[in-house]
């Protein structure tokens, strides 16, 4: 286990989460007598959850920066109704509707971002208000009716890639996607070794690379097979493709751009970030605005799948998205969390929903189980931090600094298996004695009001002023 942890480094956690997800799927597969891993069920799972997963992408950034967004469901709903009405009554083409939706989302996001970043209202409050305002607007605009949407939107929300190319017995589009994903996995390993050689680190032993890449490739291969062998005319669903594109885009933004680094910097220590030249306001503004744009997108995908926009669209979505982010390893105090982790967290929730439903468990029990899973996942996190020694189970859901993200630090022997130990220092003190606060918040700086980071109880305590 230690060797595994050392060698898998940062990739370890997301890797273990993937394995947890696989175990969950396997469990349901057996418990339902094979109803889970069928092409049509998997397609349903993707179609039925991609909107929440898209929200999770934005939400993890909001949570990392130290806020929370409760308005995403309402924003999705109001954008949905505006777009549906515009499409029906103004006769605009579908792409103009899509564009309109994104613009409305951006405007809403700028509105909320302005309150958070420039007025200093905590995101929690701003978006609680937004949740009511935009829900109300949805019902006002739509007169609480449901409005149907045209076919193109339905394709976006639940469609498939058209068939093309030679008859292979598989869906060609899906095959291509699978091959691309596999190629990426291999390319990443090669890139890692190349860097190790260039910078002068010891590269991972080959057996580690073999296991890591092998398991991932098997995963990808299997699901490619599954999605490529559905009913004729079906493929990896279009919402899934959109989701994958967004994940790639946002993974890159968060890990490989200035903007992304700023999000983590502000969430980790706002005062230090501003002394390093980061504009906290601009960062807050971007993150909040971006969240609403993604919510708009999710809303439009959802009305596509539902074939209409209704007055109750998007209720409770915020909670699903937030749960996904925390199961995915983000910290309530900000600064920690990844896009890929949150997606896996969201898939865990989705699998639970789906599996329990297939088992015939009622929605009452499903909710209870989902709640318990959320608690358990975060409890493992907390427990591990307080113990300072990661356990096998803990490994599955452990949070860690994002710099140890999968594509950057797997190359580092033991580069990151130690979050638990590292956290032990301050967190143990918190756990065992009521007095000390974690080191980082020990001193307040008069110069930046509310500048010290992280307060333990509220996610949005960073908004001091």
């Amino acid at each position, binding site marked *: 286990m230690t060797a595994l*942890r*050392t060698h898998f480094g940062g990739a370890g956690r997301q890797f273990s989460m993937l394995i947890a997800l696989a175990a969950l799927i396997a469990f349901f597969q057996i418990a339902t007598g094979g109803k889970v891993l069928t092409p049509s069920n998997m397609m349903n799972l993707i179609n039925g959850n991609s909107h929440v997963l898209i929200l999770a992408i934005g939400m993890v950034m909001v949570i990392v920066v130290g806020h929370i967004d409760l308005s995403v469901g309402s924003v999705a709903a109001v954008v949905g109704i505006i777009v549906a009405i515009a499409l029906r009554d103004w006769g605009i083409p579908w792409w103009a509707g899509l564009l309109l939706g994104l613009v409305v989302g951006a405007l809403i996001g700028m509105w909320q971002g302005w309150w958070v970043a420039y007025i200093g209202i905590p995101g929690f409050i701003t978006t609680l208000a937004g949740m009511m305002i935009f829900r109300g607007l949805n019902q006002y605009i739509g007169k609480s009716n449901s409005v149907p949407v045209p076919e193109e939107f339905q394709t976006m929300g639940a469609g498939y890639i058209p068939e093309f190319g030679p008859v292979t017995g598989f869906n060609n589009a899906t095959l291509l996607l699978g091959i691309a994903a596999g190629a990426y996995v291999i390319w990443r390993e090669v890139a890692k070794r190349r*860097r190790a050689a*260039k*910078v*002068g*680190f010891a590269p991972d032993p080959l057996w580690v690379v073999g296991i890591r890449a092998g398991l991932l490739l098997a995963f990808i291969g299997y699901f490619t097979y599954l999605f490529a062998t559905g009913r004729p005319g079906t493929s990896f669903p279009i919402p899934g493709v959109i989701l994958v594109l967004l994940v790639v885009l946002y993974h890159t933004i968060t890990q*490989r*751009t*200035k903007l992304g*680094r700023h999000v*983590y*910097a502000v969430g*980790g*220590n706002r*005062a*230090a970030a*501003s*002394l390093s*030249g980061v*504009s906290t306001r601009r960062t807050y503004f971007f993150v909040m605005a971006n969240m609403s744009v993604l919510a708009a997108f999710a809303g439009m995908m959802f009305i596509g799948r539902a074939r209409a926009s209704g007055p109750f669209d998007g209720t409770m979505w915020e909670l699903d998205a937030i749960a996904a982010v925390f199961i995915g390893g983000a910290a309530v105090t900000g*600064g920690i969390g990844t896009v890929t982790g949150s997606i896996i967290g969201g898939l865990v929730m989705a699998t639970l929903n789906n599996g329990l439903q297939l088992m015939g468990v009622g929605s009452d029990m499903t909710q209870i189980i989902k709640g318990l899973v959320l608690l358990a996942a975060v409890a493992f996190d907390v427990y591990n931090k307080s113990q300072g*020694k990661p356990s096998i189970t803990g490994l599955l859901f452990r949070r860690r*600094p994002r*710099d*140890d993200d999968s594509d*950057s*630090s797997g190359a*580092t*022997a*033991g*580069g*990151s*298996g*130690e*979050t638990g*130990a*590292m956290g*032990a*220092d301050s967190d*143990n*003190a918190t756990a*065992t*004695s*009521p*007095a*000390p*606060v974690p*080191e*980082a*918040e*020990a*001193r*307040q*700086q*008069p*110069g930046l*009001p509310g*500048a*010290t980071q992280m307060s333990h109880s509220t996610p949005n305590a960073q908004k001091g002023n």
Partner: protein
Amino acid sequence: MSTSHHKLEMRQITKEFPGVKALDRVDLTVDAGEIHAICGENGAGKSTLMKVLSGVYPHGTYSGDIVLDGEVVEFKDLKASEHAGIVIIHQELALIPELSVMENIFLGNEVVSHGLIDWDRARSLTLELLAQVGLSVDPRVPIKNLGVGQQQLIEIAKALSKDVKLLILDEPTSALNEHDSHNLLELLRGLKAKGMTSIMISHKLNEIEAIADSVTIIRDGLTIERLAKTNGDLDEDCIIRGMVGRALDARYPPRDVKVGEVLFEVEDWTVEDANIPGRMLAKSSSFRVRAGEIVGFAGVMGAGRTELARSVFGRSFGTYRSGTTRLHGKEVKMTTVDSAIKHGLAYVPEDRKTLGLNLLDSIRTTIVSADLDRITPHVLLDEDMEYEAAESFRKSMRIKTPHVNRGVATLSGGNQQKVVLSKWMFTEPELLILDEPTRGIDVGAKYEIYGLINQMAAAGKAVVLISSELPELLGMCDRIYTVCEGRITGDVPRSEADQEMLMRLMTTTTSAA
């Protein structure tokens, strides 16, 4: 072997973190009623040893025995060790800024009668405790309104409230000026006279020589030796030899001074307190730094040196009222930190934990964080460049870590400071402002950092050094400004400066310039 007269014995303590053996069969013996010092380089394992002793790292996470008053003890947490009379004051103060003095003192130990907190009694007890540590502040003022020196005394008062028999202080004076340090040491002497046993970690060897009865030296997780005053071998040189393994012939590296043109000028700079209107933190201050020059800023804590520096650095402190800055003779306006960095300024803050570092971050990402453009050739950050930069600083700064992907939180205090310095060196500044850069740094590393500062100057950069240690300023600087109550009161070339005259200027309120 009798253990009866030893207050504490730690035997063969070994503590490992993944990839790091922080302590390797360390022995520590402390006699009853003495002040025992622990010395060692940054990352030697001093704080870790004290965390083992105080139950922060619970029994079972380390190996070896702790013998307190002749009995083996096994603490499962901080509370348990406090119960046994051991109280630790951590390297980083752990007071809650928003809470009042008395709330902080009795946090977790509230004075309760009939199930409710008895604030009246708490207040009178607080006053008693404050008297014991020689502080006269209102128990109701929030901690954030107090200076660091006072906060440190509050920490001790808090410890005293817990019926402490063994007091552990991890670098208690590192953030204090001479005056406050002196007070604190006096207080420790007073407590010793009353029979208290204390353990103190410090990098200020003169203080240790002055106050400690015995010293244990740790290097790389190993006990090197135990020196005792009674043997007469307890002096700075012996300690240094034990710490670094050789004698250090000079505290300050030699340097060729080549001072050039004026590089940076500040004129009539005035800053107002953002929270208390009308209170000026800097009062029409003017100063200039030449290329290749190291300029010191002396002043007592709260004189406004940090405030002035941070305000100049992209107006990141207080409310700017007036003043101009000139770079190479040309006036420049730097209204944001970002623009200050772009103009070649760098400011290394005094408090690395709250201002210098994101403790969730890794060494690698921290080092490049103040100048991401440098590793962003196009749209995306180039991770190869990032790794290379981080790796080269790890080597050149001798940052003690197995890998640059480690979190900065896993580093010892001194190594964290090196990371902060690296972060600002990485921006290749023209003007480097260092605010207490050697706070909490061991003698060897200090020498290295001085060497780096000299290198910067030799490369034609301008350096501003803010320090509360006058010997450091006298040892390093070509010229020293003194600051008192937001005003620059003196501008003294090194050749004319001595501690006494600096002290005088630091406390005169009339402007000399």
